[in-house]
């Protein structure tokens, strides 16, 4: 087995990091940060399939994340469903929604696609805030703990391993998908849509397919967040979270699955570190975003790999 490919060495490295990281997590606060990184990374790995590989932007993925979180929350808290059933039903519902809206939306190109996905995300977040009888409105709602076979999963130290395993699974799925015929079709689409169509690729089908898959990643991550934190608020459904997610993907490096993980880690950590700057936090965060993209337009990880290869 060749350990230098992403599918073997990269995955092994990620697993090692997840295994060793708890040694550095001194208290529950840092466990919380690590879980947040893992959850963002799962969404970003899915979003990167859409943005990085298929070349289709989405400024509305927080909508899918939010639907996942609120779906699980409402079905368990308001209707008393078992969490597993709620998770399955929510994921299926979000996948169906992505399938239905994906067909007309993904016919659009470039900035028009950006606008349509942005609009979709905003509509979802307005519905969540307005239907307060069901969602608790701007105050949010509490969610029961995740239970399975009589076991209750609660606490940072338990969820760290759940999220870690889910992230490994997501990365493994993404890496395999990219190397599959469907993944090659997507990359062909990114290069030239007409060219791909001429070689027999059903462009709409391929794009909608990857849109649905990335929506499922976001939805499952949302459901996990709801059960882990025991509370959902509309903040994570809004436009800003969508932008944050896209920024993580681009920051880490488009068309690089591990780049998406690195981007999620960097941009989740950065605000935590910047809180010491208090009122200067936003200014520095904005400046870091601009500087990274100006000096590393291809993103952090690809630029790093390029520099390392050049030195050899």
């Amino acid at each position, binding site marked *: 087995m060749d350990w230098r490919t992403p599918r073997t060495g990269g995955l092994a490295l990620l697993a090692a990091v997840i295994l060793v990281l708890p040694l550095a997590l001194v208290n529950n606060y840092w466990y919380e940060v690590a879980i947040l990184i893992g959850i963002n990374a799962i969404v970003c790995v899915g979003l990167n399939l859409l943005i990085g590989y298929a070349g289709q932007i989405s400024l509305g993925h927080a909508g899918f994340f939010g639907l996942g979180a609120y779906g699980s929350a409402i079905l368990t808290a308001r209707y008393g469903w078992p969490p597993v059933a709620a998770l399955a039903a929510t994921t299926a519902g979000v996948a169906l929604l992505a399938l239905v809206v994906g067909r007309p939306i993904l016919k659009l190109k470039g900035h028009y696609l950006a*606008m349509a996905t942005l609009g979709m995300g905003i*509509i979802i977040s307005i519905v969540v805030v307005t239907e307060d009888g069901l969602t608790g409105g701007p105050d949010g709602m509490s969610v029961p703990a995740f239970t399975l076979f009589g076991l209750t999963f609660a606490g940072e130290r338990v969820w760290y391993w759940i999220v870690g395993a889910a992230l490994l699974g997501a990365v493994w799925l993404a890496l395999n998908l990219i190397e599959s015929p469907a993944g090659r079709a997507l990359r062909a689409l990114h290069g030239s849509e007409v060219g791909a169509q001429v070689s027999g690729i059903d462009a709409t089908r391929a794009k909608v397919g990857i849109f649905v898959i990335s929506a499922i990643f976001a939805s499952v991550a949302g459901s996990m967040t709801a059960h882990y934190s025991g509370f959902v608020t509309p903040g994570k459904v809004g436009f800003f979270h969508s932008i944050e997610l896209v920024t993580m993907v681009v920051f880490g490096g488009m068309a690089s699955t591990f780049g998406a993980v690195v981007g999620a880690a960097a941009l989740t950590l950065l605000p935590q570190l910047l809180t010491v700057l208090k009122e200067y936090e936003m200014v520095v965060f904005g400046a870091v975003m601009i500087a990274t993209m100006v000096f590393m*337009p291809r993103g952090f990880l690809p630029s790093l790999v390029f520099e390392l290869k050049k030195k050899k």
Partner: protein
Amino acid sequence: MSAQLAQYLLGGLTVGAIYALVALGFSIIYNASQVINFAQGEFVMIGGMATVSLANAGLPLLLAVPVAVLAAAGVGLALEKFAVEPARGASVVTLIIITIGASILLRGLATLVWDKNLHALKPFSGEQPIEFAGATILPQSLWVLGVTLAIVLLLGWFFGRTLTGKAMLATSHNPLAAQLCGVNTRFVLLLSFGLSAALGAIAGILIAPITLTSWDVGVMLGLKGFAAAILGGLGSGAGAVVGGLVLGIVESLGAGYVSSAYKDAIAFVIILAVLFFMPSGLFGRKSAERV
């Protein structure tokens, strides 16, 4: 026409005119550089906040307004010079992230220079509502509509009759060909950011007496401006104006007759519906792709 409908239409036109100014800013920058400037809304905020603080410092409105517009234009030039220009040739998504970073930076600066409170600007000429077709209209709304009309006419003259304007149009059609004809495309890029920033600032000043202003007022206005530009067809000046007015009126009617809580959602549903049937907006250029 019922008085109620007239009232909604007047309200919608006022807001729509503001959206149109912001949308024009989006289109001008897009034409010069293919960049969607997500910091466009921040120019609106800077215009309003700067005018309020200058007016509070005792400056007469006639002086505070041009100073605020020039300040916003200066910020626009700086944005182009220090954030967009160095990243030339980067992918569209990268440039979008850069302008989003700039908008966060500018909002952060606004909280430092000013504060996080809501501020009111005094209306330009009194607050006595005027009766019109059974509805009432604020004098400030007339200011909004009048100034927007004047700006649209001025821009029409600028792009149609002056050499600089024509150079900007030429750059939007084909930058390389324009450069070969002696157009300084780098200057055009710089000018487009300055001009867009000034337009945004004017919109922010005009609307401040009606809706108040604060450090984060640019977020939603920026999004609506983008939506209006897309609705009309990106890069089309007439499209931006029509898109803005349609968006404002639809929103106002939706809030009045359907549901005020879903006002913003209705606007976006309409935009999605238009895009599904007209993928390049109402006035957008049909695109052809080369392989």
